[in-house]
């Protein structure tokens, strides 16, 4: 297993280089460092000197990917790409284009993102599983059909409507929770309860429907029949036999998401004014802050790869048949 994990981590290196290359190309194929400098230096009284200085200070004065003037191997190392992207591998994110230290920012903003994402994620899965199990118990009946139609209807509604509607009703009209905002203390819960609830409700359609098919698949399998033949009641069949088996495919979809929870939810954070990584990214994209976008893409990719590895590991734990190789 250790060997497997090490191999997967080694395999991650070329992937991360590729990821960096893609973001790099995206940002520099149309934008020159000079443009970025101008965007950051503000509106009034900008001089060429200031731009040059900015470019030099941020290390954008080298060629992009290939440096014909340098000697030997440094043809590739004396470039913006090498300095800017590959230094990420040491988890040294450097400064944002506005001078803030990215690592510190990412660390402080992770908290709110997680505070929102983790409850949504865990309660969401719990609710989806419960709903799906109830429905599966009534498979083939009218209740099942009605529920499927309801799920499809729920998932046909854009997430934006859930958010706009929920915020309007609960916060503005009924004054049950603050409209938006965040506090780092324990009292954060009152800011989070609404977005979490909306996140869960908007996910039920898709999640419960998916889980339902997984449970149905498992419930039709031979071992469920064996269990019934043993005299196990329907409820126990679902919980003791169907659920653990259906958890395996659920794991693939779910575990890979866990690390990316750190990245936060763009929409929720934007609507509810939660200062997490989601809104951090949105701001960076809008401000074209390459340093932050590059970092977030890198962090996102790393988390995704960790998610893949975690998925495999959780598989070996959940399914005794699977062994990593």
């Amino acid at each position, binding site marked *: 297993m250790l060997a497997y994990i090490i191999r997967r981590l080694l395999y991650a290196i070329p992937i991360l280089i590729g990821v960096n290359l893609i973001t790099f190309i995206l940002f520099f194929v149309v934008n020159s460092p000079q443009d970025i400098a101008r965007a950051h230096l503000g509106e009034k009284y900008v001089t060429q000197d200031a731009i040059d200085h900015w470019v030099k200070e941020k290390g954008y004065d080298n060629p992009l990917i290939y440096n014909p003037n340098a000697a030997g191997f440094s043809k590739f190392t004396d470039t913006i790409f090498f300095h800017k992207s590959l230094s990420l591998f040491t988890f040294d994110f450097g400064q944002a284009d506005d001078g803030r230290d990215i690592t510190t920012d990412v660390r402080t903003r992770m908290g709110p993102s997680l505070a929102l994402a983790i409850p949504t994620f865990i309660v969401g899965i719990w609710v989806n599983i419960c709903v799906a199990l109830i429905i599966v118990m009534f498979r083939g009946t009218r209740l099942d059909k009605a529920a499927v139609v309801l799920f499809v209807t729920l998932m046909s509604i854009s997430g934006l409507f859930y958010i706009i509607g929920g915020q309007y009703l609960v916060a503005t009209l009924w004054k049950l929770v603050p409209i938006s905002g965040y506090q780092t203390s324990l009292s954060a819960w009152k800011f989070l309860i609404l977005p979490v609830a909306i996140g869960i409700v908007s996910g039920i359609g898709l999640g419960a429907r998916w889980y339902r098919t997984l449970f149905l698949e498992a419930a039709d399998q031979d*071992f469920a029949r064996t269990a019934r*033949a043993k005299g196990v009641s329907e409820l126990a069949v679902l919980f003791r036999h169907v659920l653990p088996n259906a958890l395996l495919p659920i794991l693939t979809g779910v575990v890979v998401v866990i690390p990316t929870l750190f990245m936060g939810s763009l929409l929720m954070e934007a609507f509810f004014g939660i200062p997490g990584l989601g809104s951090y990214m949105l701001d960076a994209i809008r401000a074209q802050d390459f340093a932050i976008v590059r970092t977030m893409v890198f962090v996102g990719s790393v988390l995704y790869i960790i998610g893949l590895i975690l998925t495999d590991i959780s598989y070996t734990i959940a399914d*005794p048949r699977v062994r990593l190789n």
Partner: protein
Amino acid sequence: MDNSAPVLSVENLSVCVNNPQQDPILRNVSFQLNPGEIFALVGESGSGKSVTSLAAIRLLPDALKVTQGKVLFDGADLFHSTEREMTAVRGNRVAMIFQEALTSLNPVQKVGVQIEEALLLHTQLNARARREKIIDLLSEVGLPHPETRIDWYPHQLSGGQQQRVMIAIALACEPDILIADEPTTALDVTIQKQVLNLIRTLARTRQLAVLLITHDMGVVRETAQRVGVMLRGEIIEEGNCEQIFRHPQQEYTRRLIASLPNQDNFLPSEQPDHLLTIKGLKVHFPLRKGILQRIHVWTKAVDDIDLHIGRGETLALVGESGCGKTTTGRAILRLDQITSGTISYNNQHIHKLSRRGMLPLRRRIQVIFQDPYSSMNPRMTVQRIIEEGMVSLKMDLSHEQREARVIELLERVKLEPEHRFRYPHEFSGGQRQRIAIARALAVSPELIICDEPTSALDVSTRAEVLSLLQELQNELGVSYLFITHDLSIIPQLAHRVAVMKDGKIVETGATEDVLTKPRQNYTRELLSAVPRCQE
């Protein structure tokens, strides 16, 4: 309990699909189970034997519905019980085992836990007593080292052991009735024999009433005391086992019995010139491991075998699953990479030929696969399937010529010319296997590798396909490499037999010699496991 009084009697049971337009699946099925007696329900696939058993303990899938009948158990009609009352019957008084032991066991639970569940539901034993009971059960069904195996997962056990665990689950609460639904179909012959013996012993010692469901008349003959023959949802004949086999009343029963291969007449073994010669063939697959994915071990699928097939001769390659017989066939066809050894066809070495160099020989060597459902592209018409070889092997035929040849071939394998416009899924298994034969014949090969061509077919169809193969051999003089696990069909078919085990040939010789005077223990074991009609 009185021996003669039935424990379970099924009366006039009818089942139909929820959709009322379709024919009922079961019609007025009635039978009785007596304690200590094994009652076999026999019939081909789709005859309704499994549905009968499931209906009896009310485990029918949602799509099926009981329309009439009674199931009397202990004098009470099970159809009158509530679902909750049924749970007290199932597993406790009536237990069941199924065909596929692997899928029927919960893959993520330890076997001990799965047995324990039944005990928890139906007994008041405490944890320690339960564990002892489980170990007892496991040793009773003949699982070695039950103390450790109790904590194993199903996939860690072999197929036979899994089926033994299933039986242990079924026996856990000492039921009155055991329903065994094709318990041995998925097992190798040697294991099949052991499991059947176990069931027989248990029926005797525990006074169990066993309902044995099977398609194999051989199994019936060996195991059951009474037999019911099912055809299209009805029991057409019922009676004592001896009686049925001696004096079958129904035409269909007679056919079933007759389809059991005759094992007294053997084909004579000639010694014609060698068409295909294999020397020291090895096919090894690498297993990679570690950080750098180095090759650590080789799986030796085929390990140094010698074989030869004569012109117009049939060589049967027999062995249990995983012994490397299929890989041998694939190696000859160059579908798998050969590790070492030589294969020569007509004295021409073919093991070193490139993909292109192999092309001329592809016309000579053809293949028929086991599964008639997946061996044809579902998106192509029969015409295109059959002519594909002619086109790609550049037989230089015009469109009309090809069509004529396809018609000819279809007629040759006893299908209609019109069938060429149809798609594979419109045919039954037997018909498809005929199309596969026609496809192989299309390029006029000299050697056909038949990889278990009949094992997926019902017994009656199996006989037809086999006789067609023989007919073709007589007519066209093709040679067959006949790969099979079923020893019972060999006498009529093969001139010579090679027995394979763990990638090696353990015994080879003329069919009669090998089957009647086996030299190796393994061959003897195989032979003794084959259920026979005539003793």
